[in-house]
């Protein structure tokens, strides 16, 4: 069986995927606002459709010294924390527009040991090119589970 996913590029060769229906909107040159006393990987917000949306900086999560200072593109993602619940929204910073890819069940694989930080964000993973690619667990990322997680 084959599914369509979006491949998200965070820069420095770091990529991950979300499901086809989880990517809702792209915001070029987003106006983002700092919120002090928040985790480094989620320290900014943007206003989108009368909502204030938390912005995830995946590079800052992977390597705290790699915070994305100037964001050229943000992707708005939607998810449900529980089945049947109203959708919730978040954003992730990207370096270029997402690409559509087909993922086969046979592509499923484990993340590599060196991808320990990715394991915290992944609901599953698959082989794409040389390295395994994480499929983002959006409900986990935007919950408070990782907010006080040590870098």
């Amino acid at each position, binding site marked *: 069986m084959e599914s369509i996913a979006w491949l998200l590029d965070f820069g420095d060769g770091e990529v991950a995927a979300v499901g086809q229906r989880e990517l809702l909107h792209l915001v070029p040159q987003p106006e983002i*606002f700092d919120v*002090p006393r928040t985790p480094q990987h989620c320290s900014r917000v943007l206003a989108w459709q009368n909502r*204030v949306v*938390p912005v*995830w900086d995946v590079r800052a999560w992977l390597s705290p010294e790699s915070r994305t200072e100037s964001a050229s593109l943000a992707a708005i993602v939607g998810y449900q924390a529980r089945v049947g619940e109203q959708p919730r929204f*978040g954003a992730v910073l990207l370096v270029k527009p997402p690409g559509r890819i087909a993922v086969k069940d046979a592509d499923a694989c484990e993340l590599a040991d060196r991808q320990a930080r990715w394991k915290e964000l992944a609901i599953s993973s698959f082989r794409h090119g040389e390295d395994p690619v994480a499929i983002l667990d959006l409900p986990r990322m935007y919950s408070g589970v*990782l907010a*006080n997680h040590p870098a």
Partner: protein
Amino acid sequence: MRSGESEFALLRLDRTNLIVPRNDVRIIELAIDLERDQPPPHGIGWILFDRQRCPVYCPSMELEWMDEVTSPRPICAVLNAKGVTFGLLCSEAKLLRSDDISFHDLPPAMVVPGSPIHRLAAYEGGVACASLAARILGDLPAAAAQERRTTSEAL
């Protein structure tokens, strides 16, 4: 300001926007009137308000309490909470009508215990961090809190 109208004060700290209830702000002054000699611990000087010498602090964009002013902060917002009056140095300050603001919960992914920020506020296309003078007062370093008590007793 119309009577009974709920308002808020927007205090800009470089790139960080802080919003507090208008009633938490006693006055907004130019910072040129500060007395810089023997500043309070973790503060940068004193301001005279209502015949009291009130400590003045300079929060960074990250809401850390700085011992010196490292960017232009021409405004001093004098806040009051729990009977304590203190000043915050700001880049800019202005009043906002509550009709122009929509408040939002802090997203769970951003909640860190002990933060003085409890909500977010969207206004005029911008987003500010909502707090209260009491929360800011509670966030001041312990040494500064001790100094406030000592000063209050001396006066």
